[in-house]
């Protein structure tokens, strides 16, 4: 093979047998290598898809919300005890409205009940602060006081979660007609079911749940007979002993159709009681509990109650913060880039600045938080938790990103353009501002937007300057106390109640929408104006 030309025997064929064998091996190695690459990309994509699915899956339930409808007369006594029709006083009179609705509910379900525990259970169907919108609405239109109005109130988070299937695994079964009823509502009744098979189904359902759960958990079964809900105490053959839960206080008649709701978790293991479930089911049949789109997620500010919490304040806080960030980082970043790329003479000083900026871009974001805490808050005495400080910190954080992106864009403009301008007698500044910067503008803009997107998603440094504070009001300016979306997400994710989970996921989606928008703009800009030299 070492000879310059091949032997004649090789003419017409390509390669010896040994070479062909070797070639086969080489091609196999080729395929393997290619496969590794595909695998890697597959893993990365699967990870992304999993992430998105898990978040969207969680979030989907947060975008709908169950509301409880009330049809009440706004009793002036309760709503406006002072009688002055002072809007502020009305809006602040949360307890008055609360009582009004509580009474309305109690009238329907527990008329004349005095057991405070039982009442509290009923009142737990919604949270006190949920009446706030009603109060505000009334305050705006005081003339509706005294008239009958229909109101919608957010259902308590646990019950909402229960309806969305979050509290316990459950199973609905039709039990068919009942043959026979004995006993009283107060002491418990025994019913005999006509359909043995249905009873078997119920039993097996209970059994399955029991097997599935750990420890001493006893699955529960709620049975509906007509308008009344009972709790299943025991079942023996076709006869079940039931106790009264809620609903019409009438003995069910034989022949009534029965249905059951089997719950995996026993009452003790749940945040929702059997009775509350029964009430909810009754309200639902009445059409008073309905699932609606969760507008409060966008219109409300933060709240200690997940069903009332929204992202409005955080979104506005983020916007204020971004405004400050943009005002600091973009002009300064671009000018600094122009200076370094076009004017700075190469010496140790500029080398130092250069190294310094590159390093700064790679400094962990939390360090900027420390800087903000130490300099802006401790040293300069600026207030904590305000967009001004957050914006400054984030501005410094993305400054190197903007500088580097701008420099890259400036560098991409070929030196021949500068030469050309200098060659016709333009000064350096003219060459830069007439030619180089306009040509680099799309790149600079793209870089700036991407930098801003990064700032928008940044969390850690803001934690350290106190932007994690609870903010119930939409901030009016950069010096108002506020929080930002990512921090809100962090805060919600640490919430103890399970209802925070979908809420957090929903907030994440709001954040992602903003980010996707910004990146889309950047991509469009890049596609539209990108110039290859």
């Amino acid at each position: 093979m070492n000879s310059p030309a091949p032997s004649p025997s090789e003419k017409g064929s390509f390669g010896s047998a040994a070479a062909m064998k070797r070639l086969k091996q080489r091609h196999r190695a080729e395929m393997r290598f290619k496969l590794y690459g595909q695998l890697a990309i597959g893993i990365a994509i699967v990870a992304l898809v999993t992430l998105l699915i898990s978040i969207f899956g969680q979030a989907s339930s947060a975008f709908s919300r169950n509301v409880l409808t009330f049809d009440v007369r706004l009793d002036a006594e309760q709503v406006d005890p002072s009688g002055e029709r002072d809007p502020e006083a009305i809006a602040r009179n949360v307890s008055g409205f609360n009582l009004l609705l509580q009474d309305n509910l109690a009238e329907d379900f527990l008329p004349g009940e005095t057991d405070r525990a039982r009442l509290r259970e009923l009142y737990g169907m919604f949270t006190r602060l949920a009446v706030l919108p009603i109060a505000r609405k009334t305050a705006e239109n005081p003339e509706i006081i005294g008239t009958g109005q229909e109101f919608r109130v957010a259902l308590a988070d646990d019950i909402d979660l229960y309806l969305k299937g979050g509290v316990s695994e459950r199973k609905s079964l039709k039990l068919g007609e009942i043959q026979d009823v004995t006993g009283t509502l107060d002491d418990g009744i025994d019913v005999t079911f006509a359909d043995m098979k249905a009873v078997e189904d119920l039993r097996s359902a209970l059994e399955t749940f029991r097997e599935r759960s750990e420890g001493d958990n006893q699955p529960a079964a709620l049975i509906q007979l007509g308008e009344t809900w009972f709790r299943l105490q025991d079942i023996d053959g076709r006869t079940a002993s039931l106790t009264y839960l809620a609903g019409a206080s009438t003995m069910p008649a034989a022949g009534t159709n029965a249905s059951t709701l089997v719950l995996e978790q026993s009452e003790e293991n749940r945040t929702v009681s059997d009775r509350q479930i029964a009430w909810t089911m009754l309200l639902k049949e009445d059409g008073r509990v309905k699932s609606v789109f969760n507008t409060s997620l966008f219109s409300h500010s933060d709240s200690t109650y997940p069903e009332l919490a929204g992202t409005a304040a955080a979104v506005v806080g983020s916007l204020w913060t971004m405004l400050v960030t943009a005002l600091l980082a973009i002009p300064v970043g671009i000018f600094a880039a122009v200076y370094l790329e076009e004017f700075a003479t190469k010496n140790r000083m500029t080398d130092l600045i250069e190294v310094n900026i590159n390093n700064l871009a790679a400094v962990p974001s939390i360090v900027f938080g420390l800087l903000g805490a130490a300099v802006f808050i401790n040293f300069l005495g600026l207030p904590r938790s305000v967009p001004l400080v957050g914006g400054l910190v984030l501005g410094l954080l993305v400054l190197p990103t903007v500088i580097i992106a701008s420099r890259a864009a400036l560098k991409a403009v070929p030196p021949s353009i500068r030469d050309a301008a200098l060659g016709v007698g333009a000064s350096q500044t003219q060459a830069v501002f007439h030619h180089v910067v306009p040509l680099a503008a799309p790149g600079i803009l793209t870089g700036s937007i991407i930098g801003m997107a990064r700032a928008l998603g940044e969390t850690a440094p803001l934690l350290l300057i106190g932007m994690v504070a609870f903010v119930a009001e939409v901030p009016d300016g950069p010096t108002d106390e506020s929080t930002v979306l990512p921090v809100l997400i962090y805060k919600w994710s640490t919430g103890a109640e399970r209802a925070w989970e979908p809420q957090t996921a929903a907030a994440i989606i709001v954040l992602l929408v903003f980010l996707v928008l910004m990146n889309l703009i950047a991509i469009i800009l890049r596609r539209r104006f990108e110039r290859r030299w």
Partner: protein
Amino acid sequence: MDGNVEDFTETRPKQAHTMSEMIKVDCRNIDVFYGDKQAIYDISLAIQDRAVTSFIGPSGCGKSTFLRCINRMNDTIETAKVSGQIYMDGADINDHSIDPVLLRSRVGMVFQKPNPFPKSIYDNIAYGPRIHGLASGKQELDEVVESALRKAGLWDEVKDRLQAPGTSLSGGQQQRLCIARAIAVSPEVILMDEPCSALDPIATARIEELIDELRERYCIVIVTHSMQQAARVSQRTAFFHLGKLIEYGDTEQIFTNPVDSKTQDYITGRYG
């Protein structure tokens, strides 16, 4: 006396007469498309062995594209589509049974810009023989490397620093290293795509000299921007224009008495 007359021309073999016997690569009806754009129109061309054939023509005339058909480098460009037959020693290189990887070990290529691998000089040369299993031991490999470097006229310049990186050489040396690298896998054909366009006149002259020496062993095809270079190094010249082969013949004839008026105009600096 007549003997003397013969003697005077002996440095130039009379190719015209012996051509048919010495054809190494026979291209027939080659069309090349880049996407929808046709770059080469039905070119047929037979390239002689042990001679330098040069492709000339104004830029965009398809000479490089055509060159890259011969070792199927157009395969690496996704939009490129080649049709027609190219026979090398009678075998169609576009046949499915022909592996481009093996083909390229028989048809070496040298590029416009010297592109040594970022490895030592030794490894630059040894890389090809290694992947093709052309040397079975360290000693044999050493021999292959030395022989390739010698043939490329680079041995004396680098023998004391075979472990130095290939990129440490000067531009002209780098290009000769690339030629040595191509030679090391014992090709039969060497394609050169404007091998001197990135070099200064002195380095260019060295490469031309080398090409002239290599002609004795290989079939060399060179694409060049410079008519002068084609005139200097090649025995046969093909003139391309707008993707078509306008004229193909002995270099001397092309440069002193071209048949086609387009060739004439191009060569004499008239145009169109």
